[in-house]
């Protein structure tokens, strides 16, 4: 199994299982747990380990590939791509806006104000950069 990549599925999260795999691979890439050019586990062992349908993992990988996060090399498997978005900036921002809306809505319900929210966003950015830096050093 790939170094540093640990996927935890939560059937109570309400998020489709394949999307949980997609998001966690992306987050592993963002934090440097997997680096560009490194292989992802192949479908069968990952499905066996997570005890999910093989099709679920295949669907997640297809989604990651269409988003340009990974690439499949025939006979060799799936690898993390170097710069991973084929989309134009406007599309990328639009995709991110949806996620941001969810987070903003959640913040509202948790009674977290704008200033606090922005501070948290900054802190998370730093945390990821820190993790990445550490991953690159090791």
């Amino acid at each position, binding site marked *: 199994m790939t170094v540093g990549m640990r996927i935890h*599925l939560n*059937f*109570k*999260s*309400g998020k*489709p*299982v394949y999307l949980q795999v997609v998001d966690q691979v992306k987050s592993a890439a963002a934090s440097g747990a997997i680096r560009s050019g490194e292989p992802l586990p192949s*479908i*069968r*062992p990952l*499905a*066996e380990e*997570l*005890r*999910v*349908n*093989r*099709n*679920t993992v*295949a669907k997640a990988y297809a989604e990651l590939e269409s988003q340009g996060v990974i690439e499949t090399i025939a006979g060799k498997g799936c690898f993390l791509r170097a710069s991973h978005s084929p989309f134009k900036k406007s599309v990328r921002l639009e995709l991110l806006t949806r996620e941001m809306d969810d987070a903003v809505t959640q913040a509202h*319900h948790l009674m977290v104000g704008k200033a606090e929210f922005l501070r948290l966003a900054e802190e998370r950015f730093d945390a990821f950069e820190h993790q990445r830096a550490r991953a690159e050093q090791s």
Partner: protein
Amino acid sequence: MMPTTPGASVIAITNLVRRYGRADAVDGLNLRVEPGRCYGFFGRNGAGKTTTIKCLLNLLRPTSGEVRMFGLDPARHEVDVKSRIAYVPDSVAFYPWMTVRATLDYFASFRSRWNQETERALLDQFRLDLRQKTSHLSKGQRTQLALITAICAEPDVLVLDEPTSGLDPIVRREFIRTVIGAYQDGKPGQRTVFVSTHLISEFEGLIDQFTIIERGRDVLTLDADVARDRYQKIYARFADDPGAIDLGTAHVLRRDGREVEVVVNGNAADVTSRLKARSPETLTTESLTLEEIFVTTLEPNRAVA
């Protein structure tokens, strides 16, 4: 020449009725399984699962209604249908005088395909002794042997009837791993699994669509992801007792003082906004697991805490 019906569902059951004397074991069941799906068939003991499966395998004739596999009537095209399916029942019987090796050869002799490589890999994985007589195998080992005979034949459909009941947790996990790995890997996207079980949580990750059967009828059919999105448990705690709150169609599990816990079916947004209007201290939402959905469908008042 094998009759084929391109584009047909792997399994199509229409208004199936099967009576034993006066009792209806199956009473107007409908379901449809498309190729490549992993389909869960959930029901309590006695709900009609095994009777349905026996109709699929032509071990029982339907009293009325229609059963089709690959678009074919299993009673009229028994050989064609049976050559494309494999079945693992809940308790497996082998000829007791045969060894494991002889049993495998015996099963292979009925099959047009037999994957030796898979056979070797699974015998190894399960650590089965080829010289052992089947009468000396444990229940777990018999199930493992049955799974090998099913998977090596590389069927288009694997029909599993309560495959893991009565097995220890390690054997169960191994069983499911084998279905995911050895079986599904062969022809990705084409290998169909139809599994009847009441041990739902073990199959949670494997199932992508399911039907709940109760008293011989299908009471709920959904995609697993859709189901987990639709059925949610919402918990709210207030600073003070909020008094009466109209929660619409939500099913109240617990209502005591400052706390409210409800289960919703598809109207989470509406119920959440009604609760939010009362400014709760805490408001959390989580999806029900397939097992919890099963319980809440059959026994709304016992929905899991």
